[in-house]
Each structure stands twice: as structure tokens, then as C-alpha cells.
């Protein structure tokens, strides 16, 4: 047993009594890969099944095999043909993009204030911002609805952008404050000696240094806004103003008596792809240690 634990820990040391030169059976390696594969299978299976179903049609949808007998892309073209799905995608992109830009810009400035400026009530204000993220969406829904009506932006994307900021801002502010506090204070003093203003300081000195944190939080904010359902359902009415999650939920057949599983799955796959692409692109940019060399190192 202890030998197995050792091998699992990656130790190359020979167990006592082992013949030198004769490799031991790599139990640890096999265990590692078995566990990894199991983990990957469990997490990817739903997506795999959605992909498989999206390629099936008719009664094929109700047979459980993973590889469809007669793969077809009819569902994909159907999604775009029978409703303004392209418009919905664009809406989602606009909302999520604006939410990311706004929340990063606002929270970067807020992070400077909370992380660097000392003022009375700073801790209280930070706690208030954190507590805003504790409220369930349903609790703010009716109040937010009144707000949206008062602004006259009901059934527009602006309503969704404002509502989604409620979800993203608390955590982007908190994450960036934490990172901001780790940056050396001398940088700000050096900038003060150089005579730069607050905005230049925040956007030209701090933003490049916080880039890894910005990418990570921006990605999370994008995913939150992209997947957001309740606000999107409540604050939009017309098909053209819907975002993708609501559009998918409201996909129906003309008869109204069956669920078009094939099209729903096709739409789900389409809506997943941008997120996968974003993570693949940005995971390389989430590099830490950019600030190495700022101070003695």
C-alpha cells in the first residue's frame, strides 16, 4: 500500500527490496489517468449528449446511442430559420460585451479607491458591495423592474445591461481590490512624482499590471451575463430583444404540443461555443507574475 502511495506521489525512488534497473509497474500513473478520464467524462458527458442529440432527427432523438445513425445539420439551420436566432446571438454578445466593459472599467476605478485611497467608511462600503451579491436575483427582480420602467428602457438591451451589472460588479470589484492591494505602493508614488493624474494612473499604470486579474474576472463576468436568464426573461418582451438563453427556452414547435429537442440541443451547442472559444483564447493570457520586476526581485 505504501508503495502505491509513493508511486502515486510521483516518487521515482525504488522501494526497498526492488531490483535496480527493473521498472516497477506504474500503478500510480495508471490511477492518475483513470481518475482524470473519469472526471473528464463526467463533466463533458452532458455536452457530448447535447451535441449528439443536435445531430439527430425525428424518432432518432429517442434512441440513446451517442453516435447518431443518420447525422444531419437540419436542426442547426432550423434554429436560425424559424426564429431570429442570429439576432438573439448578437443581443447576447452586445449585452455580455457591454457588461464586461462597463464592469471592468467601473470596478477598476472602484478598486483604486478601495484599495489605495483611505477614506472614512471604506470597509463599510466594501461590505455593502459584497452584500449586494448576497441578494438572490428574485429578491431584486420586482424593484429592478420598476427601475427599468422608470428609465423607460423596458424591452431594450439597456435594461439587461444595467440589471446584469448588479450581478457582476460586486465580484469584479472585490477581486480587483484584492489584486490592487498587492501592487507595490511605490508605483503610485513614482507616478505621483511623474505628475500623472488619477485616470492615467489607473488606466496606464495599474490596468496593464492587473491585466491577468482583469482577464479572469472579465471572463467570469462574460459568462454570468451570457448565461443570465431571469432578468432577460423579465425585462424583454419582443422576440427581437431576447438574449440566447431566453430564446432557447422559448423555442417551440408550431403545434405547441411537443418540445423540439433537436433544435434546443443545436441552439445549446451554438451558445456554448463562444464561451469555449473565449476560455481557450484567454487562458494563455491569464499569466501571473507580470508584476515581477516592479520592485526588488
Amino acid at each position, binding site marked *: 500500500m505504501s508503495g502505491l502511495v509513493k508511486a502515486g506521489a510521483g516518487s521515482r525512488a525504488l522501494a526497498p527490496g526492488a531490483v535496480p534497473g527493473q521498472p516497477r509497474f506504474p500503478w500510480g500513473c495508471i490511477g492518475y489517468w483513470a481518475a482524470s478520464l473519469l472526471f473528464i467524462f463526467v463533466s463533458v458527458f452532458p455536452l457530448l449528449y447535447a451535441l449528439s442529440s443536435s445531430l439527430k432527427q425525428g424518432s432518432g432523438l429517442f434512441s440513446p446511442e451517442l453516435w447518431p445513425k443518420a447525422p444531419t445539420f437540419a436542426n442547426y439551420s432550423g434554429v436560425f430559420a424559424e426564429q431570429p436566432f442570429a439576432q438573439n446571438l448578437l443581443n447576447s454578445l452586445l449585452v455580455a460585451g457591454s457588461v464586461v466593459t462597463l464592469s471592468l472599467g467601473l470596478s477598476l476605478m472602484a478598486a483604486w479607491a478601495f484599495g489605495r485611497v483611505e477614506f472614512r467608511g471604506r470597509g463599510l462600503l466594501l461590505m455593502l458591495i459584497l452584500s449586494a451579491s448576497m441578494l438572490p436575483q428574485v429578491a431584486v427582480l420586482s424593484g429592478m423592474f420598476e427601475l427599468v420602467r422608470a428609465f423607460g428602457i423596458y424591452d431594450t438591451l439597456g435594461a439587461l445591461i444595467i440589471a446584469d451589472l448588479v450581478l457582476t460588479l460586486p465580484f469584479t470589484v472585490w477581486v480587483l481590490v484584492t489584486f490592487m492591494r498587492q501592487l*507595490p505602493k*511605490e*508605483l503610485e*508614488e*513614482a507616478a*505621483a*512624482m*511623474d*505628475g*500623472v493624474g488619477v485616470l*492615467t494612473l489607473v488606466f496606464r*499604470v495599474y490596468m*496593464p*499590471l492587473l491585466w491577468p486579474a482583469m482577464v479572469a474576472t472579465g471572463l467570469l463576468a462574460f459568462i454570468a451575463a451570457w448565461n443570465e436568464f431571469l432578468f432577460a426573461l423579465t425585462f424583454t418582451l419582443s422576440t427581437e430583444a431576447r438574449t440566447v438563453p431566453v430564446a432557447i427556452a422559448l423555442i417551440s414547435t408550431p403545434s405547441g404540443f411537443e418540445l423540439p429537442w433537436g433544435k434546443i440541443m443545436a441552439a445549446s451547442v451554438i451558445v456554448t461555443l463562444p464561451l469555449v472559444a473565449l476560455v481557450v483564447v484567454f487562458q494563455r493570457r491569464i499569466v501571473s507574475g*507580470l*508584476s*515581477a*520586476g*516592479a*520592485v*526588488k*526581485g
Partner: protein
Amino acid sequence: MSRIELRGISKRFGDTPVLNDIDLSIAPGEFCVFVGPSGCGKSTLLRLLAGLEDPSAGEIEIDGLLVNHLPPAKRNVAMVFQSYALYPHMSVHQNMAFGLQHRKLPAAEIERRIADAVRILQLDGLLQRRPKELSGGQRQRVAIARAIVRQPKVFLFDEPLSNLDAALRVQTRLEIARLHRALGSASMVYVTHDQVEAMTLADRIVLLQPLAGRSDVPSVAQAGAPLALYHHPANRFVAGFIGSPAMNFVDATVKALGDGRVLVDANGMCCAAQLSPQGLAVGEPVTLGIRPEHVLLGEGAQRARVSHVEHLGEVSHVYLELPGISTPLLAKSYHEKIALGELLPFDLPAQAMHLFRADGVAQARGNAAGRSVEAVDG
């Protein structure tokens, strides 16, 4: 030409006084070093000059202009930080140009200044590198270059050498001295805890003492030329801080007063000190001070046993046990053949003696005494 005037400067953080009642005038082109043990507020004083902190009381004047309420960038000063504080995401060139671009200087002028700084500090070939691709010494030079391109009236250095290794420290120290000569008219204010840096670089040393929570002691223990602080320390704190190893202190009482001479009794050991007897009374408790390098070993009427020897190569530190005195007397000697337990004759030259009264104030030593001390050095 920029004279710096500090008048009645005090600084407290909350209820803790950090700097107290500082009056100081730094002449144009002067190299002024703030030195002191940790916690004496020397960095804070520099930051007051830079404008990174506001004084609790007092006025700061640079070049005849009251700068108390001016932001750092408007004070015509440039600062080199202990941690360099280079912008990590910018190249060396951008680091130097960043501040100048914000002052809306024409591009040609910026390039000219950067070229000058590159020449002075030998930064050729490094301009496109990021700070993390530079060695410690190179980062230090870039930090200095960033200060130079601003062409300030005053340079502020906050312990610039403390992150460098010993050899590089000596080399950079020389470069800073050379830079000061090259720049001529600009004043330099330099903070360090290292008395060797202070002694070697300074035209004038300002020795600060920690306040330890008291607001009735002045922060400046003594200000003056390096050798003045060495030969004529104003009080016991200065005497103990300047010089390495530190001055020997022995408790004593005044036995007799003469013309330019004081006789003291240190627990049965009778010594003469060549200094002004003014204000002293017979029987008064005093502290006798003598630097290790001034204790004469191998001659004289006194005898002491060697309790410990440290051989440093160029010199040896000899610890002498004196009867009835707990701390051994430290002497520097160029003889290497000194054995532990040996009974050595020694002498405390009267002209090398310092005397401190109970409140720590030094008894004045005449100029003649100062000169003869220098003779003892040789």
C-alpha cells in the same frame, strides 16, 4: 540654484511623533545625507520633501518657493525609490519617457534627455528591455536615469543601495558621487542607515535620532560635515552612532578641573581629558568616551587583561577587561600577535577623550584638540 529650507517641521502619525522641530537649510549643489538608526524618521523626512507626505507643522521651501501645498510633480524634485518602483510593463525607454510625456515636452527634447541619461549611466542596449529583464544594479541605474531626465533641482534618494550586494554597493556609491559632481548645480538629499555611505558621500550629514514617542526631544541630533560629527559629536547619541566599531563609554566622576583639562576617576582608573572644563563640577557623574582606534595598546601606565580578540585582517579588535567595569574596553590594533588572557599595557590619550554630562551633552573640545586627535589617527 536651489536652496532647501525646512522651518519647524514636525510630523506625527496619529499620536506618535516621528519628526520633531526640524530646522534645516540645504545649500544649492550640496550633497546632504540623512542618516540614523531605523525608526528615526529619515525616510519620512525625505517623503515630506518629495511631497508624498504632508508635515504636521512647519514650512518647506524649495528655491524660495513655499511648497507645502504643491503636489510632488510641481516641486521640481525627482526621487529614486529604495525598491526602484520602475513601471514593470514598460520598457526602460518608456519608463524614462513616461513622466516627460505627461509634462507635454516635445518628442525631440525627450529623446535628447534620454540620450544624455543613457550616456551618463551607461544604459546603452538596455532601452528596449523590461525591468524584469535587468539585474539589480541595472534597475538601480534606470531608476536614477528616470530621475535625471526630469532635470530636477533636487534629487531625493531613499536608501538606493540597500538592495544591492556589497561589491555593487561600493561601485554604485562611486557612481552617485561622480553623478553629483557631473550634475553640479542640483542638490542631492540622500537617506541611508549606513554610516559608511553617509561619511563617504556627504558634504553634510544630518544625523536623526529616534523619538521613541517623546515630543520634547529634537529629531536632529547633529548636522554638520562628516569629520565634524566624527571629531566633535554634540552628544552621546552622535558619538555612539558615528564610527565603527562604536565608541567606548565608561562611567566616571569628575576628580579635578584644570585649564583645558579635566581629571576623571573611572572606578579607580584615573584619566585626563583635554577639553573645556566649563560647566563641570568636581564630583559630578559623567560618561567618558574614547574611540577604539584612539586607544593606544602596548604602551602607557594602565594595565588590562585581553578577554577577546577579533582578527579582521587589516586590523584586530581587542577587548580589554577593566576592573569593576562590566563592558570591556574595545581597542583597534595593528598587531596580530595578541594572545587571550595577556596582560597588556594601554593608554587613553587625553586629547582623544570625549566627555558627556549626565544629560548626554558633550563637553566642548577645542579645535586644537580636534587637530591633535587627527594626529593620533595617523
